[in-house]
């Protein structure tokens, strides 16, 4: 078995975000590390948006990133600490939009290990050195410098190892131009390891240690260390040199302490939230923060530190002033005050332009603008003067009142599916392709999301039209116009001309023939207009009309035109060619060319820049051919090439588009009557047609139009859905993506003052009755009859993102998502640990008498916490109604939390479906504890829109997996697999068996076979023998896999994911599979000898692949119309990926070869070996990495040629194969 792995949505969880001037200009960019990807974001302060510049998969785990700048330079370099055992320095090249590696220094083994540096990375603020450290023991310092050619150099590493030392946090100190110093927060366990009494363990103190790099002697010394608060876990750099006192802020449980080797300690507490539902004893810790230096005076800097609740505190340092009032660099006090509350972030970046980028730990990332800096507000400020510096001394805790944002304004929320907990694929909207439904987020910021393949379209104007228009054009009046002036609509019996301006009005003096339908409209020459209608061509120049009549008894059936040329096809199959003369009149070419069949479509293409004419004409005939005719003067209308098609062509378009070679290529786009779209390369010299790629767009004939989006020519293809063909701005690959818009009959480019790059389209079945007047566009045509046609003007803003997301807020962290078997409703179970359940919240609020009862929205402030309490609920979601929303929420009480759910049709109830939810009471996660478990049963009402609680059954453990099984319920309760039937008062136990060693976490079934996923021990196959009512495990796995999800690929094979990021397929041996299903094999199975403490047989591994992200769900589904089944998996960090099975051995060989060449020619940026990375835990088996293969199009041309030569194919052929395999099965 061979699979092709593709990522269709990259992970969106940000491990770390970094600010820098990576292009070498004044502009600041944000670099984020998410999973194995580095993404460069360009904030746009004017629009308040964040745009993606570049996303690069490094095929390795990014552990830490840092940036530095050499003295006197303007460009920031990037240091990467990854799992490659190497330190990498890269730079961003803005010209080619690429990352380039400058240095790669090996220091240790690969992989994420305890003593291999990579966990922490800090660069000296002056760019002279960097320190890379492991969690334990090892620290390496690299000296960075430049040589005489002004190139960046890196020294061999200097060691600062100390065995038995754990590092909690590490930063570089700002010391100006003195020797670079790094500060680490350390724990030393050497004494504790030697002391059997356990006393030394109790006495382990957290140490703040300074490591100094002596640049003169070129070695590192442990310069200073001091004990800090035991609970300290995070350090922040305090500006030094001329800007401030240097040193660090040490953040621990409820305190922020300023420390430096030559200064006093200053300590402020972290204020606690006050409020009716808050626990007044709970201490906060700082989880992230940022330091920002303001321009101007020395000492003007502040910190924004964030607590685990998400509250931001502004921390400032006062310095002692000298006689002139200038700060001396000696600290006087530390101050803290409440700033604002935003979601908990992994990284915060403050931009010079006054924005804050918050990379949220869970949920959407946010981009804020600073309104003010909280300087003169009424918030209480707490100063270190009032608090003891000794961490053990007692003090009075301080409190504050959280409030809605005051200093920050949210300007953009960037969609992020992290964490993605579960995912289902279903087609609920009745479109061609199914949608992906997933639940993600945590706490009150949880969401249910609908993911659809398509481009987001913003509709600018939509308006009803009288009659049934068949086509629409827009046209300028003269060559020099910037915007379109007319919209021309063609009806079966006439033409309507509208002018575009403040209002859209009918034009009567346009010179157009309005009593006949129109076939083509084109602005020609300096100031002429062409209208082609069935009976002739009308040339309008400055109000004068020249008419060319069609020959008698013949009419025009197809026409095409550009600025200089007009070609028409007559009903007799003749083609007539006109060219613009130098005097601005149309000249007919003497000869007519007769085609063998009826002409269905024509295309002449744009006049290439600097030339007089387009040299090719494409003619499509109903005998299923396309011919290319020459339009050159010496060979006019001579045939250049011909291509046979599978159906009659319905539309043609010659246009040049950007290609992956860095230039542009002339393409012939062909739309067929069968709904297939083809793109062929049209040789600019010979007119040969080569390299055809095709895609099925829908069951209707395809129409094609050239439009312009983001200054690039794109093709708008209309079938049963509108599609846009474009070149992806980052990968430069050709993409064909559906538009999220109604079915269009006709479309055209549209450009006006309000909408520079839009499209106009006609669509039928227009149901909405209101259209926006926002842009001042009104229709003067006073037809008040309700017709069923309309036209819309719309534009596409982002080409990069081809997935549309819609989200519905949920209440708590979702745990499972299930779909109603017949109805379009979803059910989620949600639960939050250590959260105050609603009934207790209400009780506390009632008790509160003294007016302090403002309830803050939990989406922004989170739920109040309470140790050991659970808040949990079941939600019914209606995703496809006009207003997608949660229909009903059932809160669980009694400190129960839902852990599993299933919809079970019970045979004993005549197949009526019930919702079954497994819960656990008083659960403690680590180590696993609970008092008891329950299984709740709910009956559906109103087709599933409503739930009625029936009864609950007590079980000894929280059931972690539930599925329907032969009209009964199959539950995994602890290690026990059990079959239940529905009784009147509770569930009735029918059969049970202990089948796995640890804990059943997933179940699947087909026929009598049950697939059991164990928390720790992988997959076990169990057979249910109805005769003896027995459950018998018969085959299990050879490896301990920490199962996170499973699905059956076929009767014998199971695909699963584990917690370490692997996806695998295992298969039951054929003989064993047959034996178990034989009737009467029960006795034999029961008495088979166990093999090595497991079942009698073992599964064989078919496929294994490391995905980096943690798979949370996997399913077998098809994603495109007529596509084959693929395995779709969702990852915790927001990844959605697919595994596409290969059909032919030939393709496997080709892609294997290509993958090998790619590994050699495009080695991963951070120096990780690709093969070893994909075989992180177990060697990769049976999977070809499509993400690596798709990087082929980004290679420089010479490398492409070389690989193509080695593979004995052309570059185009390789690119086609890569794009085919994707488009055939996925987006």
């Amino acid at each position, binding site marked *: 078995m061979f699979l092709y792995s593709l990522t269709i949505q990259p992970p969106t969880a940000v491990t770390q975000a970094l600010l820098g001037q990576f292009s070498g200009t004044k502009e600041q960019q944000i670099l984020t590390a998410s999973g194995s990807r580095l993404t460069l974001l360009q904030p746009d302060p004017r629009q308040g948006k964040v745009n993606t510049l570049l996303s690069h998969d490094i095929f390795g785990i990014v*552990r830490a990133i840092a940036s530095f700048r050499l003295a006197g330079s303007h460009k920031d370099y990037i240091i990467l600490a990854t799992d490659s055992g190497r330190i990498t320095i890269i730079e961003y090249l803005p010209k080619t939009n690429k990352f380039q590696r400058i240095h790669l220094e090996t220091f240790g083994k690969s992989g994420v290990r305890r003593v291999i540096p990579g966990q922490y990375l800090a660069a000296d603020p002056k760019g002279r050195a960097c320190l890379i450290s492991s969690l334990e023991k090892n620290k390496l310092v690299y000296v960075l410098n430049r040589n005489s050619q002004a190139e960046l150099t890196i020294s061999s590493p200097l060691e600062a190892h100390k065995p038995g030392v754990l590092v909690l946090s590490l930063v570089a100190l700002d010391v100006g131009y003195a020797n670079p110093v790094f500060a680490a927060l350390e*724990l030393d366990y050497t004494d504790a390891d030697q002391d059997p009494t356990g006393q030394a363990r109790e006495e382990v103190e957290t140490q703040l240690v300074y490591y100094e790099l002596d640049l003169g002697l070129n070695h590192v010394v442990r310069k200073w260390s001091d004990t800090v608060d035991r609970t300290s876990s995070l350090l922040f750099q305090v500006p030094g040199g001329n800007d401030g006192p240097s040193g660090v802020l040490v953040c621990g449980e409820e305190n922020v302490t300023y420390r430096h080797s030559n200064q006093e300690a200053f300590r402020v507490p972290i204020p606690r939230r006050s409020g009716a539902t808050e626990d007044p004893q709970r201490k906060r810790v700082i989880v992230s923060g940022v330091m920002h230096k303001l321009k101007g005076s020395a000492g003007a800097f502040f910190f924004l530190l964030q607590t685990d609740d998400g509250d931001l505190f502004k921390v400032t340092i006062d310095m002692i002033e000298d006689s002139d009032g200038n700060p001396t660099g000696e600290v006087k006090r530390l101050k803290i005050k409440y700033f604002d509350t935003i979601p908990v972030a992994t990284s915060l970046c403050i931009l010079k332009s006054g924005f804050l980028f918050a990379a949220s730990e*869970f949920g959407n990332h946010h981009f804020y603008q600073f309104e003010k800096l909280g300087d003169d507000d009424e918030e209480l400020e707490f100063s270190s003067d009032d608090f003891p510096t000794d961490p053990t001394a007692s003090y009075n805790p301080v409190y504050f009142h959280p409030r809605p944002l005051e200093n920050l304004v949210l300007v953009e929320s960037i969609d992020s599916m992290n964490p993605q907990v579960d995912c289902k694929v279903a087609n609920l909207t009745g479109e061609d392709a199914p949608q992906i439904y997933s639940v993600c987020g945590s706490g009150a910021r949880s969401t249910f999301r609908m993911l659809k393949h398509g481009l987001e379209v913003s509709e600018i104007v939509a308006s009803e039209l009288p009659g049934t228009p068949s086509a629409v054009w827009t046209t300028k009046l003269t060559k020099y116009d910037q915007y379109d002036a007319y919209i021309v609509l063609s009806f079966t019996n006439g033409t309507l001309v509208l002018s575009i301006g403040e209002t859209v009005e009918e034009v009567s003096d346009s010179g157009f023939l309005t009593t006949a339908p129109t076939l083509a409209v084109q602005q020609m020459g300096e100031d002429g207009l062409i209208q082609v209608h069935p009976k002739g061509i009308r040339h309008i120049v400055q109000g004068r009309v020249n008419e060319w009549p069609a020959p008698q008894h013949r009419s025009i059936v197809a026409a095409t035109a550009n600025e200089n040329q007009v070609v028409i096809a007559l009903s007799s199959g003749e083609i007539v060619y006109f060219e613009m003369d130098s005097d601005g009149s149309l000249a007919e070419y003497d000869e007519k060319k007769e085609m063998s069949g009826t002409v269905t479509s024509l295309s002449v293409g744009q006049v290439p820049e600097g030339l007089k004419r387009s040299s090719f004409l494409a003619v499509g005939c109903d005998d299923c051919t396309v011919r290319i005719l020459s339009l050159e003067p010496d060979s006019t209308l001579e045939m250049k090439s011909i291509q046979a098609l599978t159906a009659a062509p319905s539309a043609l378009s010659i246009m040049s588009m950007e290609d992956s070679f860095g230039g542009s290529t002339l393409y012939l786009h062909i739309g067929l009557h069968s709904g297939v779209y083809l793109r062929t390369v049209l040789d600019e010299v010979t007119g040969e047609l080569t390299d055809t790629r095709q895609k099925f767009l829908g069951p209707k004939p395809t129409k094609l139009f050239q439009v312009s989006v983001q200054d690039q020519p794109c093709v708008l293809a209309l079938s049963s859905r509108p599609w846009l063909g474009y070149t992806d701005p980052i990968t430069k690959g050709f993409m064909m993506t559906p538009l999220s818009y109604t079915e269009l009959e006709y479309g055209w480019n549209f450009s006006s003052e309000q909408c520079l790059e839009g499209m106009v389209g006609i669509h039928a079945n227009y149901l909405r009755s209101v259209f926006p007047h926002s842009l001042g566009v009104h229709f003067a045509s006073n037809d008040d009859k309700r017709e069923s046609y309309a036209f819309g003007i719309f534009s596409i803003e982002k080409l990069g993102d081809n997935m549309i997301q819609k989200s519905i807020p949920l209440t708590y962290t979702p745990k499972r998502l299930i779909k109603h078997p017949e109805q379009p409703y979803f059910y989620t179970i949600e639960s939050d*640990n250590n959260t105050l359940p609603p009934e207790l919240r209400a009780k506390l609020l009632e008790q509160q008498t003294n007016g302090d009862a403002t309830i803050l929205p939990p989406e922004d402030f989170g739920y109040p916490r309470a140790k050991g309490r659970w808040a949990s609920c079941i939600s019914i979601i209606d995703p496809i109604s006009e207003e997608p929303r949660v229909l009903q929420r059932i809160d669980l009480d009694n400190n129960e939390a839902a852990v599993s759910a299933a919809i079970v049709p019970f045979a004993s109830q005549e197949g009526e479906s019930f919702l079954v939810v497994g819960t656990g009471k008083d659960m403690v996660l680590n180590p696993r504890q609970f008092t008891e478990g329950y299984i709740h049963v709910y009956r559906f009402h109103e087709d599933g829109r409503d739930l009625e609680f029936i009864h609950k059954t007590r079980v000894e453990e929280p059931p972690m997996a539930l599925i329907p099984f032969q009209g009964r319920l199959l539950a995994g309760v602890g290690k026990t697999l059990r079959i239940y039937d529905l009784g009147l008062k509770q569930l009735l136990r029918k059969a049970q068996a202990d089948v796995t060693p640890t804990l059943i976490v997933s179940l699947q079934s087909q026929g009598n076979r049950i697939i059991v996923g164990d928390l720790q021990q992988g997959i076990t196959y169990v057979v249910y023998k109805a005769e003896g009512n027995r459950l018998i495990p018969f085959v299990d796995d050879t490896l301990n896999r920490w199962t996170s999800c499973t699905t059956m690929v076929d009767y014998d094979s199971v695909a699963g994911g584990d917690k370490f990021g692997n996806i695998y397929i295992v298969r039951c041996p054929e003989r064993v599979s047959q034996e178990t299903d034989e009737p009467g094999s029960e006795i034999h199975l029961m008495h088979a000898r166990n093999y090595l403490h497991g079942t009698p047989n073992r599964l064989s591994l078919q496929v294994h692949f490391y995905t980096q992200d943690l798979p949370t769900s996997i399913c077998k589904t098809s994603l495109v119309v007529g596509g084959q089944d693929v395995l779709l998996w969702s*990852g*915790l960090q927001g990844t959605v990926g697919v595994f596409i099975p290969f059909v032919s051995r030939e393709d496997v060989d080709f892609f294997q070869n290509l993958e090998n060449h790619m590994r050699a020619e495009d080695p991963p940026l951070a120096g990780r070996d690709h093969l070893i990375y994909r075989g992180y835990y177990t060697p990769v088996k049976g999977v070809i990495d499509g993400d690596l293969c798709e990087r082929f199009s980004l290679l420089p041309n010479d490398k492409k040629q070389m690989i193509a030569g080695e593979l004995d194919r052309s570059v185009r052929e390789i690119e086609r194969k890569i794009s085919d395999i994707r488009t055939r099965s996925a987006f």
Partner: protein
Amino acid sequence: MVTLADKLRTQQELERLQAKYIGTGHPDTTSWEWKTNIHRDTYASIVGHPPLLSYMALAENEPAAKVRARLIRKMLQPMGPPPPREGEEPMLVDRKADS
């Protein structure tokens, strides 16, 4: 033929490895040492793999930074204090009563 020098060299090589790579075993590795080492490795691995850490953080409903710090602190002595050395055992005490 194994000479004494060879043995010595092997011994030195092993010691060098043990110093460089923490947790490299030797014939006298005790069960406590082994377990402590495995636990420390496990915690370090969870902290080092971002998806694993956020998986835990999500389940516990805590920020990852807090979970990370807690796990690193757990590395101090994941299996409790070492067993007393030979000859230094305290008088037999009832462990259960203590805990």
